[in-house]
């Protein structure tokens, strides 16, 4: 459409500057939209329209962004149920018995899963969609439009310059046109157009005003009829560059929407759980085999991926000697696994940064420990074979656990134990402690209790703690593998046979993850494009002045809000233009 000519009313320049984008709030456009926004009006329809425009305005987006930031704050300060340590919530209850229930009622112990947090981000994303999707449509249209015509008075543009040349106007423009195209400007030549036609057409790369597009076509003919009003037809090169800025900005915003879609996919179709598995034991992907399991809303727990695996061996290596003595170097869980029942088993090593992946489900190695193996013979001669996972004690290389024998006769037996992978006497008090996490010199310190385990009280009991309220301690000792302790009064014997290791796994099915990951990469790309690229326009006009010489005028325009630096580029462009359209000698 190189026949689009016309001119900017100088007063409208600043408005013009902001039109280099599809930002919705430029002052002079959208008259109706603005009005709709300010006044709800009477009818239900206009109230709705007003609500929609308000919601999708940038100001609302800004406020919602703040609310989102503000709403996240309590989630970082108060203990959270879904957080790293849910027990802290009950601690908080114990410490603040009156305040805690109130906070709980407000959802403050589960901020990120609460309805009001969801309300904020959903509103924000509706606002985003309502703002960005129409912008994208407008932008697609704007991409196809040609650069607008030169303003009548180029010297009033924010940056401009002029010089005389010996070339003819036609020549000068030809060269300028070629140069700008070489520099990847979208550049058009507009020959012999009246520079005083209606500005309305010009206004825009902003195809957003639907009517504006039509306007252009309609007005094409009016141009000639007005030619007599101007100073006579002139020719110019109209150039524009940097649509990618807006493209990047839209890519960024649309990607944010896609991130949300990915997260939603996971929360609806994903699940996460954990399982502790001892060596030689197996795990099958059914809910019974999980220690904890939280499925998404539409997960059919009868149709979990049918894989299974057996933990053959767990191996850990540690730093020996030096200041980092005892630090872990590697953990590896050697498993044989089957993608489905009856499939041939395959070997795999699950490591910390190396999960097992099958059918969109990942199995991560999360923790490990030892499971001492005891054979306990009770007073009646009955024997129990128990291999019980002991749990690592933070900050030490010891593992705690209990063995409960509710069926022991004549009284129930309970054992509390501390597993010491490398046992040694504490130099201060002589107590056995573990000085290294690898099983160099394994031993277990046990206390044996007899009495009532309290399992029938109806209260839920942890498998890792012994309630000794109704029990009495009958023995305490340290055993090495193969040692047997004989209990007093014919209560039986305890043999420490040896130990296995166990590994704990996090098992997650996260169908939205690739979506989130892709979208998140796109956000960075979009951001960089949007913040690094400048949208700018350049006009070159060449005409004969009164003395018959060729006057070249160059002017440029960029968005005011951009980070500046356009002057530099303009200067470089002018230098380049002058190398193809040299100034007349006496000018230099």
């Amino acid at each position, binding site marked *: 459409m190189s026949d689009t000519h016309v001119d900017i009313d100088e007063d409208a320049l600043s408005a013009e500057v902001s039109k280099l984008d599809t930002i919705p*709030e430029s002052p002079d456009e959208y008259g109706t939209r603005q009005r709709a926004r300010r006044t709800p009006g009477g009818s239900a329809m206009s109230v709705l329209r007003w609500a929609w425009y308000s919601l999708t305005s940038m100001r609302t987006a800004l406020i919602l962004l703040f609310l989102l930031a503000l709403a996240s704050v309590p989630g970082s300060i108060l203990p959270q149920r879904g957080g*790293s340590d849910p027990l802290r919530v009950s601690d908080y209850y114990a410490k603040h018995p009156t305040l805690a229930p109130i906070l709980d009622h407000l959802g403050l112990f589960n901020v990120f899963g609460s309805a009001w947090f969801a309300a904020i981000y959903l509103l924000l994303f509706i606002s985003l969609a309502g703002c960005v999707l129409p912008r994208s449509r407008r932008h697609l249209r704007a991409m196809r439009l040609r650069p607008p015509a030169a303003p009548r008075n180029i010297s009033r543009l924010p*940056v401009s310059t002029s010089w005389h040349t010996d070339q003819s106007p036609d020549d000068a423009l030809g060269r300028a046109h070629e140069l700008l195209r070489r520099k990847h400007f979208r550049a058009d030549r507009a020959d012999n157009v009246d520079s005083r036609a209606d500005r309305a057409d010009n206004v825009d790369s902003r195809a957003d005003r639907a009517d504006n597009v039509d306007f252009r076509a309609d007005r094409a003919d009016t141009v000639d009829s007005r030619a007599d009003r101007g100073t006579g037809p002139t020719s110019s090169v109209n150039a524009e560059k940097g649509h990618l800025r807006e493209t990047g900005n839209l890519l960024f915003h649309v990607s944010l929407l896609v991130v949300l879609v990915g997260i939603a996919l996971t929360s609806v179709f994903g699940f996460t759980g954990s399982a502790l598995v001892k060596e030689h034991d197996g795990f099958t992907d059914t809910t019974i085999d999980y220690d904890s399991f939280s499925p998404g809303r539409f997960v059919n727990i009868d149709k979990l991926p049918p894989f299974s695996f057996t933990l053959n061996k767990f191996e850990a290596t540690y730093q020996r000697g*030096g200041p980092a003595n005892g630090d872990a170097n590697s953990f590896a869980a050697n498993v044989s696994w089957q993608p489905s029942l009856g499939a041939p088993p395959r070997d795999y090593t699950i490591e*910390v*940064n190396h999960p097992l992946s099958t059918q969109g489900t990942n199995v*991560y190695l999360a923790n490990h420990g030892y499971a001492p193996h005891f054979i306990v013979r009770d007073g009646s001669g009955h024997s129990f074979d128990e291999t019980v996972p002991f749990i690592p004690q933070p900050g030490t290389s010891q593992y705690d656990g209990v063995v409960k024998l509710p069926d022991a006769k004549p009284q129930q037996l309970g054992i509390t134990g501390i597993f010491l992978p490398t046992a040694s006497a504490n130099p201060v008090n002589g107590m056995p402690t573990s000085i290294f996490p690898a099983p160099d010199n394994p031993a277990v310190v046990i206390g044996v209790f007899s009495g009532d385990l309290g399992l029938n009280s109806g209260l839920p009991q942890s498998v890792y703690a012994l309630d000794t309220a109704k029990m009495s301690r009958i023995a305490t000792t340290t055993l090495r593998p193969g040692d047997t302790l004989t209990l007093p009064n014919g209560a039986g014997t305890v043999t420490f046979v040896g130990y296995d290791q166990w590994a704990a796994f996090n098992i997650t099915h996260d169908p939205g993850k690739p979506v989130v990951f892709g979208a998140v990469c796109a956000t960075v790309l979009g951001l*960089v494009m949007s913040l690094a690229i400048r949208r700018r326009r350049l006009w070159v006009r060449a005409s004969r002045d009164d003395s018959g010489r060729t006057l070249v005028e160059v002017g440029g325009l960029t968005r005011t809000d951009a*980070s500046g630096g356009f002057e530099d580029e303009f200067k470089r462009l002018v230098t380049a233009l002058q190398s193809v359209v040299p100034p007349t000698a006496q000018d230099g």
Partner: protein
Amino acid sequence: MPVDVGLARLSNDLIAGGIVAYSVAFLGFALDAAFGEGFDKKASASAEQAVVPAQVPALVGASTAGSLPEGSTSADATGAAAGAGAADGAGARGASTSSDKYKLPRRSGLFAVVCTVIGWLLEGGAILSRGLSVHRLPWGNMYEFTLALTFASVTAFLVLMTRQRARFLGVFLMAPVVLALGLAVLVLYVPAAPLMPALHSYWLAIHVTAAIVASGVFIVGTAATVMFLIADRYALAAAAGKPVRFTGLARMMPDRDVLDRTAYRAYAFAFPIWTFAVIAGAIWAEYAWGHYWQWDPKETWAFITWVVYAGYLHARATAGWRGRKAAYVAMLGFATILFNFFVVNIFISGMHSYAGV
């Protein structure tokens, strides 16, 4: 591998030297600002047009463009431009304003820049030798993080000075840098030691490095924003005809627009890096824990920072918010970074327990 004690000690000596150099630089910048030629408003506004190519006869800045009569000859135009003073942003300044009175301060400005570079080299050496002494990237605890952070912001400042006039930031940047380093050495210091194993991951290295670079640049932006707010207050008071006190302070400020634009540049540069840092952290978490986002306090505050700076970028594009209000939003963004660094690291426990204090 054992810690190289000699290198660790060298690192401590270098950082002490760095602090001294930065402090001297701060004094130099302060002298320069207080008694120097001041920052001529027009000149700094057109600072970007510093070098006018010889063959461009009449390049005029925004300020004078409007005054050019249409069709004026280029000779007229050159005269008009020079007359209006736009050109003095360029070469004129160096040569013509060298009255004796200003010699000392102008030298002190230059001297301050040199000291900054020396301090920067010393600090860089301190970080390098610390890293070599422990055989890892030296940003594993708050002490090391503070060193890296201040190094990043001084680097950003130096780079900015090569691209535009930015010496005016000196006072407001070196003050927090010296303060932070003093805090690091006196309060946060921990002897060189290897890293806990959970922190061995190159995603972590990428994540923390990006966070440091972004925060360092955010600091530079914040210095510009603080100056903008002060300059804006003066301008408002002056416009309202109120008495303006401490005119010295006002005089050392360049034009508000320059400050605003410098701040925006810094934020616009840092924001995508921050975005990337948050994403890299999520990827690392995914590897380490199988969950890319768990709303751990540190993650939550990184997110809050991100949202607030997104708010800033929006505020700047929204009529009625640009200028002062947007500047407040940017200050809030910086406050969230500080909160994350000091309060979350020290008082709120989460999975990111690497504070080492």
